């Protein structure tokens, strides 16, 4: 696992007062690195004209 990813997870778990289960960084390191790489692709995607507003429809459903 990339050091930066490991440190991020450790830091975030620390906020919960937790530690990763022993061996999990070795067990999941590769898959988490690929996850982060895909996350960066998603972040880089130009979605300038897309919004999520339609998700929130204030019209009450018919009962």
């Amino acid at each position: 696992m990339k050091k930066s990813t490991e440190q991020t997870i450790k830091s975030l778990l620390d906020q919960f007062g937790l530690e990763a289960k022993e061996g999990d960084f070795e067990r999941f390191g590769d898959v988490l690195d690929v996850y982060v790489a895909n996350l960066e692709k998603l972040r880089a995607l130009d979605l300038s004209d897309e919004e999520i507003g339609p998700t929130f429809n204030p019209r009450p459903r018919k009962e």
Partner: protein
Amino acid sequence: MAANEKPLHYLTIDEAAKLIQKRALSPVELTKAVLDRIAAVDGTLDAYLNLMSDRALSEARAAESEIQKGDYKGPLHGIPLAVKDQLDLKGAPALIRGNQAQAPRDAAAVERLTRAGAVILGKLTMSSLPGEVPPPKNPWDTSRITGGSSTGPGAAVAAGLCLGALGEDTAGSIRNPASLCSLVGLKPTYGLVSRRGLAPLSWSLDHCGPMTWTVEDNAHMLQAIAGFDAEDPTSMESSVPNYTSALKTDMKGLRIGVPRDYIDECRVRTDSEVLTLVDKAIEELKSLGARVEDVKLPALALATFTDAMIYYNEQFSAVRSKLKDIIKNGAPATRARMYVGLLTSAGDYIQAQRLRSRLRRECHEVFARVDILALPCQLKPAPTFAESGPLDTLWKHLEPEYQAPFNLVGLPALSLPCGFARGNLPVALQLVGKPFDEAGVLGAAYAYQQQMRWYERRPGI
């Protein structure tokens, strides 16, 4: 093989219903035959988590009494079905919820099945359960997996341990086992089938749907469970058509779109036999009268990952208060998803929802020109247990594949058997329709099914 030549446990819902309606078959006799089948075979397959024989026989006797009095409710009356553990059954725990609390009532979809007169056999196993629960074996080859996460339903329906089952699909979990076990598996439109009583994995991606041997069986089950439920805040109001009357024998006038660019992107990870069989199936659709054209959906490229990201993070949010216990005791895949949840920011989640909007818009534009999409359903035939690992699903969802994108946009998507690869391993075609056009998808699927008759082949177990 005609219905009267088959063992009772291998009757389809439609065949059994016709016999039950004319009182040539008793629901009690049918249920006992299926229970005998379970006793004979489930020690090998491990499909059932909680077999509720008393409930099943009580419901079968009630159905028999009603039918004898002339109160026949329809094609599910007296039919033995089972449900994935994720769906609540009154008085039984849902192991996936991580506790032994007994559900106070049946899930909404189960209530609708019982209202239609169905007999509920019990709960079927699924992936990622806490504790040491053996994974079910694929009835086509017991050294192979069924595919998940509706693993129990996949094994049970294929082996005649129930005549149909309710599964659940967040990123392919109905269509995956359906494709590996030669079933018809439908992920309906989001909001068509109530999620009340379904243990949530991901609120905006979970879909409850039927897994059956044939298309007409799927239509029968969907007819019973579809429709608005005021107790489910995501339930959509839409008219429920007669799905059985939509079943066709040809595809004249049907416009089918094939996302070739996307299939090419997935090609390197897709088994060559799967691609060959799916291509043959698409040619068969043409011979049935469909017009087939290539379509482009560029947003599909990151859709699988986006679905997975939303799924893992909604799950993370739902179980966040139990993080300590999950890190300590959870299944490996569940623990990995927690780490994923920690790595993902709110901004990332919003970006994912914006990609979702983009894909929904692209699909809307494509469906102005075509009625149905056709593409592979699976990357490969069922692997062996030796070839599989606890993180396979995570890895699968980090690269483009065929199932998860349609959870993202909530479209109806059906896994339909289209042949067998080496080793007699099932392969499926996937048909995807417009929102709430399950009738169109089932109608087209029926035409192909009747032409090719893959359902005539059963596993040898």
